[in-house]
């Protein structure tokens, strides 16, 4: 293995670490909201600092590899992809932090019948899977795996539309919970946004492996 190879592998390892941090943050933030666990919410806010630090570390490593190794071709694309995936993951972390802060605002638990209908954890399961798949696809240079993310995102979009409607329908009967319901609505939107970011990551992986730019293309093939 060349010196550059070992640096690139280390970079991939850091992205994997970042992905795992973000994955845990996501689940924890939704748990905090659904079960009104303010202790968990505070943990999420605390861990967010670690995500930011990891982001900066990865940025710096990308910069160093560019300056010291002048990578070209697939190596160059790998560094570019890592640089952007890093920032997409950090944005996911921000969304989880946002959800955790809604949990801290709760004065009483969210209505159970609403939570049952919303199936927030089903969305979280799917998002976690997407993050994990993306991390593996990036690690193994597997663009076929990355492409599957686009299908998962489609399912998530369908869930999102349904969930928003459920929240809207809930409003009229519960005027006393307007503030909480608005936060639930925002949570649904944030989860949808995390799905989009996963799609962006998949695009970066395909660029890295195939030198094929999918960004801003309607048909992801």
């Amino acid at each position: 293995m060349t010196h550059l190879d070992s640096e690139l592998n280390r970079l991939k390892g850091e992205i994997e670490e970042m992905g795992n941090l973000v994955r845990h943050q996501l689940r924890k933030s939704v748990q905090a909201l659904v079960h009104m666990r303010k202790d968990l919410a505070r943990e999420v806010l605390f861990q967010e600092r670690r995500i930011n630090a990891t982001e900066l570390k990865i940025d710096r490593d990308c910069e160093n590899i560019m300056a010291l190794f002048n990578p070209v071709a697939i190596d160059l694309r790998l560094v570019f992809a890592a640089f952007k995936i890093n920032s997409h993951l950090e944005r996911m972390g921000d969304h989880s932090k946002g959800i955790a802060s809604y949990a801290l605002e709760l004065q009483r638990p969210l209505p159970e019948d609403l939570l049952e209908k919303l199936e927030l954890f089903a969305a979280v399961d799917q998002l976690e899977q997407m993050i994990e798949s993306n991390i593996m696809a990036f690690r193994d240079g597997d663009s076929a795996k990355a492409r599957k993310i686009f299908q998962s995102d489609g399912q998530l979009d369908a869930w999102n539309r349904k969930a928003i409607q459920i929240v809207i329908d809930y409003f009229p009967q519960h005027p006393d919970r307007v503030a909480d319901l608005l936060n639930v609505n925002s949570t649904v939107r944030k989860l949808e946004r995390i799905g989009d970011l996963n799609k962006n990551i998949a695009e970066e992986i395909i660029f890295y492996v195939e030198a094929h730019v999918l960004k801003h293309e309607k048909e992801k093939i």
Partner: protein
Amino acid sequence: MSYFKIETRNVSLYYGNTQALKNITLGVPENKVVAIIGPSGCGKSTYLRLFNRMNDMIDGVRVEGEVLLNGKNIYADGVRVEDVRKRVGMVFQKPNPFPKSIFENVAYGLRINGVTNKRYIEETVERALRQAALWDEVKDNLKKSALALSGGQQQRLCIARALAVEPSVILMDEPSSALDPISNAKIEELIWELKKKYTILIVTHNMQQAARVSDWTAFFYLGELIEYAETKDLFTNPRNEKTQNYITGRFG
């Protein structure tokens, strides 16, 4: 008229029984810089030397195919080597100034071509030195020995010497591999300037140099042209796996 300033069509070159170049078809458009990269022994210098018939001097060399300058075969009967070299200048890896003054080094090509007009020679020497970005450093010492110059200055002097006879093509064989980074940067800047007037073919081991100075890059391996593409494409998305392995340093 050919689209290319210089080109080869199906050129093979043999040293005795050894085939050093295998059926190479490649063209350099006018006012462009083309870099040839590849591992040692891949035939890149041999290829470069086709264009000023430097290989002629080696015993047992046989060339097949066409080597064209302005669309005309320079290996055709009746073509004089001197005429080819007047139009195709060459700069070598190691600066090789003559043991003469700076002025006489640059004037040399004119003198052997029978030019005697003193004023014309002076003007030409100044122009060539300016083009080679050396004038400001040597204008007060034109009578000094060229051998007293630094390596980087000597190399620019050799470029000035090549430019003085007004060639249209310049061949460069590792022109800055023996130079320090500052001199190297000056040579690269110079190449960038020179391509406005000249067509340049450069052989280099320095991949970053190829990436910086050239418009197109050709990758040679074992006497074959593996890939020829726009430099920005070759260094970001090479089509051939051998090219990818070579430029990313994972060869063999």
